[in-house]
């Protein structure tokens, strides 16, 4: 049996501490610091030198330098001029990756399961397009810091329930309030496609959805007419009002759909209504891969680390799903699982398909650049590229790999506090072990 009793060398951990020391971070504070303190704005340029840079959008750069200033990346390459007064960080032997993007998580909106009042994901009613998911993000939620330590810098906190659940925003996992955290509002309107098990209820729900969109179109036309001075002002309707961006083609529609029939019918609906959709869930997307490719519909795949949906399917069916979508040419992002406390599992969801044939770089792209493109935020995040936000991970290897230590994170250039609540407990109770001196007594 293996216990520690202080005798063993702790390879990864010690290396991590060494780096931390070099970075001048207070990881070995004698008393535990507060967890998850938001970082101050970047005050001076930072240059990280000597690292292997996985830009994701371009080539892997060996022994390169990344410079960022005022939160944005200003230079990436091997031949980079470090600005005057920059903080220089030696990262030789280390790796830089863009921060990971979690495109489907309740982080910030969900604290404790079973205690409904700590969960703000499900508004009453069938149609809630006026609900803005980000407006109830609790910046103090423990799960934010834990997810961040796993390398996730951007997330799309998600709603659920009804047929239209609300509008989703992309947020950074750092900040004192949700406004500071928000990278982009309204990246998608979430449609919760009805379940096909009961044919009658299913048809009724689809009819209700079609009717609602028709009402929204009528409302938009009336509003347009009024705004052009062609009619008197119509009475306002908060729900229908909130559909205007979708109908104008300015806002994507994210459709939760797993079953083959759901996906097929959602595609039909979107095509008839002329909407840009993203399929989320996508359990059976592989059966409709050709249709998805032909219509350029991307998929956010959830539930990778789960069992096959059907008895006859082989054991690795769920892990293998991204491989088939990749081979078919479908654009996809891996969305992990929605539970806020498990946002930190995103790397494991994205990495599992690698064991079953997904190229490692595709896996990485599925939680960085491809996720950003699907969400329409690739002008801000998703790669290490000049002009993008400085969302950067300094690591000992691929951030999807279990053995990799994520030593430091920058979000919009801010040097992030790596003390999350898990680490906080570690510090505090390691102190208890030291005080009690641990040894077995029996």
């Amino acid at each position, binding site marked *: 049996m293996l216990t520690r009793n202080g005798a063993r060398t*702790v390879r990864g951990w010690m290396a991590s501490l060494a780096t931390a020391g070099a970075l001048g971070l207070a990881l070995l504070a004698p008393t535990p610091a507060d967890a998850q303190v938001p970082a101050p704005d970047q005050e001076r340029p930072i240059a990280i030198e000597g690292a292997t840079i996985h830009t994701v959008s371009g080539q892997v750069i060996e022994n390169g330098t990344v410079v960022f200033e005022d939160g944005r990346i200003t230079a990436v390459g091997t031949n980079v001029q470090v600005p005057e007064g920059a903080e220089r960080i030696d990262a030789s032997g280390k790796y830089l990756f863009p921060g990971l993007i979690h495109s489907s998580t309740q982080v910030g909106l969900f604290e404790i399961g079973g205690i409904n009042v700590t969960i703000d994901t499900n508004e009453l009613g069938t149609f809630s397009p006026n609900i803005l998911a980000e407006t109830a993000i609790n910046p103090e939620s423990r799960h934010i810091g834990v997810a961040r330590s796993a390398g996730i810098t951007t997330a799309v906190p998600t709603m659920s329930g009804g047929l239209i659940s609300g509008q989703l925003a992309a947020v950074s996992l750092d900040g004192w309030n949700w406004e500071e955290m928000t990278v982009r509002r309204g990246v998608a309107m979430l449609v919760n496609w009805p379940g096909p098990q009961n044919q009658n209820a299913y048809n009724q729900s689809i009819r209700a959805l079609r009717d609602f969109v028709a009402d929204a179109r009528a409302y938009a036309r009336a509003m347009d007419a009024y705004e052009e001075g062609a009619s008197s002002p119509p009475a306002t309707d908060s729900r229908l009002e909130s559909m205007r961006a979708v109908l104008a083609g300015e806002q994507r529609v994210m459709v939760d759909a797993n079953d083959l029939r759901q996906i097929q019918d959602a595609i039909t609906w979107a095509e008839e209504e002329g909407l840009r959709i993203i399929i989320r869930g996508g359990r059976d997307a592989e059966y409709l891969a050709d249709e998805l490719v032909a219509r350029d519909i991307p998929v956010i795949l959830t539930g990778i680390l789960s069992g096959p949906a059907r008895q006859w399917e082989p054991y690795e069916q769920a892990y293998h799903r991204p491989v088939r979508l990749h081979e078919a040419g479908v654009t996809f992002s891996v969305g992990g699982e929605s539970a806020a406390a*498990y946002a930190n599992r995103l790397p494991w969801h994205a990495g599992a398909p690698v064991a079953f044939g997904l190229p490692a770089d595709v896996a990485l792209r599925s939680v960085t650049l491809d996720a950003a493109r699907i969400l329409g935020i690739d002008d801000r995040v998703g790669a290490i590229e000049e002009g993008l936000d400085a969302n950067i991970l300094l690591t000992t290897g691929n951030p999807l790999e279990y053995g990799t230590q994520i030593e430091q994170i920058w979000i919009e250039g801010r040097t992030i506090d790596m003390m999350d609540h*898990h680490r906080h407990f570690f510090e505090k109770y390691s102190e208890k*072990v030291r005080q009690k001196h641990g040894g077995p007594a029996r």
Partner: protein
Amino acid sequence: MRVRLPIVTGLLALLPLALVAPVEGQTTPVEGLRSQAPGVHAFTGARVVTEPGTVLDNATLVIRDGVIEAVGADVSVPADARVHEMDGRTIYPGFIDAYSYAGMPEEPGDEMDRGPDYWNPQARSFVQAAGILVEDSGQGAGLREAGFAVAHLVPRLGMFRGSTAVASLSDAPPRDRIISDGVAHGFRMTRDTELGFGYPTSAMGGMAFLRQTLLDAQWYQEAQEVYRESPQGMRRPETDRSLESLGPVVAGQVPAFFRTTSEEELLRAARIAAEFDLPAWYRGSGTEYRMLEEVAALGAPVVLPVSFPSAPNLSDPAATLGVSLGQLRHWYLAPENPGRLANAGVTVALTAQGLNDPSTFPEQVRVAVDRGLDPTTALAAVTTTPAEMLGIGATHGTLAAGKVANLVVADGDLFTENARIHDVWVDGVRHEIHRPASVDPRGRWTMTSASPAFTGDLVLQGQPGRLSGSFERTAESTSLSNVSLAQESRRLGFHLPGDVVGMEGTVRLTATVAGETIHGWGELPDGSRASFQAQRVEGPSAGSGPDSRGVPASLDLRDIRPSQDHGREGLPEQPSVVLVRNATLWTMGPDGLIEGGDLLVREGRIEAVGQNLDAPSDAVIVDADGAHVTPGLIDAHLHSGISGGVNETGNAIVPEVWIGDVLTMNNTWMYRQLAGGLTTAHVMHGSANPIGGQNAFVKMRWGASTDEIVFEDAPRTVKFALGENVTRNTNRYPNTRQGVKEIIRDNFRAAREYEAEWARWEESGDGIPPRRDLRMEALVDILNEDISIQSHSYRQDEIFTLMHLAEEFDTRIKAFHHGVEAFKVAPELAAHGAGAVIWSDWSGFKVESYDATTYNARILMDAGVVTSLHSDNSQIASRMNWEAAKMLRTGLTEEEALSLVTSNTAVLLGIDDRVGSLEPGKDADFVIWTDHPLSMAAGARQTWIDGRKYFDLEDEQQDREATEQERARLIQFILDNG
């Protein structure tokens, strides 16, 4: 029932007297005039099946007053007999249904809350089928339609259902129907919710309840006897009519008749029968073919249903993606169940019970015959076999002089042809089931009428009772409407359009069919009447009705176990010697990590690990080619593969229940877990009870039988549970964490007192022996550390408190499971000597899981606590290497991380003498990985258990093709035939 009876009686009072006139009884006084129609009948020209396999052609059978007088080819017809010319019809012995609820009440009656009963309403052994038989239930008539003349009546309710009776299916009152009483005792393996929702709530609770009640019955007889001998100075033992009634059962004088719902449940029933040495019969479920050898080995009679599943609706391919191969195979194979069992030597009886419409029984039996059941065996299964089993062979089951006059008259062979039952004679009384048509007007008739003068052809076709026809003249043909035929009056009626007589409107005709002529009259549209005649010129066209038999046996399905998706054909072989060469060998033992290592296996055990081991000449060589090889992974806490409930919630304290009683091999997760490198699992009771049930160990021997998946000679462990799960039920003690401690403490004290009471009695031997209490026996074993405590826990205080309590009783907690806050009491755990079996990263799903940290294992190991991971989830159990790998981010070394799912796990479960590391003498359970086992890129390449290769990535493609192809074949087969 109190409400229902008067209604039924009232209804009957309205019926014509003749239908309910009592059969003359032996003690019933006569009212009015006696009815004495002669009871002597001779059946001549019959094909008589006197017993299975013996057929007399053109024979005569004579019955007199309910008893067969003679049967044979040369039998002369008695002068006083009524003669029934059989015209070659077949006569069988009346059928016997070996398992029937006909006339058995569906709900309990007054007896529920009266009299000295057992504490648990599921024990109703005092009930007698004969005593509760409902008069005129009408259910016997339904069985008669299928040819049954006798039924073995089993009370419906409870787990100890009472004594059974054999009864005639005549319309006589019960006193004239009972053939034999107290024949067997009815058992059922799980609780009956008609009797309440209390203990036992689970299948494993059912097993424990059966055992305890049988023990109580044994104790009861002894206690009563001791007390009767010298009651003075003794505490009077309780009076209990169920325990009293169980006396002959526990003495083995009356068979235990178990009603079972799956092949595994049948084998569980057999386990109970064996433990208590009870002669046993079984009412099977129809799935016994899945464990044919095991069922055959019991050597006990099995009563089988013929209610075969209907094919799934496959019209929409999207909707039916979810139809499994297991479902499809069962649809196809279920009709073979009776044949397979009979051919394997099982004594098989067939029952109509389970059919929605009992009258379909003969056609369902023909389906079974089509699918391999020998027709003679089929007949025996409803005649001689049940007669012998039920002890009425002297009077029932065959057609021979002196036997009861129970006959089935059919127009052909019921077991091989689409024949119909015409009459069933019960106790010498005829019951007409299907009356053959007295007149058959089908055919072509030349029809003439004088005024108005017309001729034409009348063509009648279809089935008697559903006739259709046409009127044909030169080239034109007009359909008849409203065609009717009354057999009793021989009256035919139909309508014709008026234009056949040159009028507008409808012609209505009524006529008498007399042999080959029809004569009658009609009313024309103008109100005038005309008579007509017709002569038959052509008989009905030949052709029998539709064949209602099942699908042909044309598919050659694989012989796989389990009989479902990914089941395998036979177990993998166990080579005598296996040498795995050139591996990166994670021994997880004293040899640490061996690069370029060899692993030598002999007869399923590890013989040596090292470098450059010599290959014995007979060794099967496996070249790992540098791949990583680790011990088979172990999951310390899993709930998959359990039948009939994970929790026994019927009581807060249930250590007498045992997961090992209810393991199932029909568990697809095992295949998936095996494919993920899992070789051993600790399959645990749920967390509903402060002291839960005992757990079991399985090895992932996918394809083995229920008994063979069990980890041999495993240590005993018990589940305890603390915190929210056990306190949140406001209707049950405890509701607080303090109460949890108190109820455990109270039971610990009770167990010590129980132990002392037995010790005292064993020394003195005086008086009534103490009652054996399985709950207390388990608790004594727990306190004495023969059963290790594996306690579900979250919060630090509850962990701390349970350790305190254990120390008060000089025992200890082997491991705390889940232990979300175990890190907060790491030094205390180390001091107590308890281990921790935890999740890698579960958090936030309830309040007590909120203070979670992925550093839990790290802190615990730093403090010297032996630590393991667990899945608590079937899917996670299929990737425990990745669970271990997650711990690398908290600073554990690779070997420390892997120890959380191998060596440490084995220690905490007490199975480290067998598994958990690659060391000489241990089981050859190992995994060859495609990559570093703690990498995202790793999957199992091969998983070996006991030196057998149960999983091989290279064979995987064949399995999935075989699974998908067989599924596709079955779907097409249903579309073609279903």
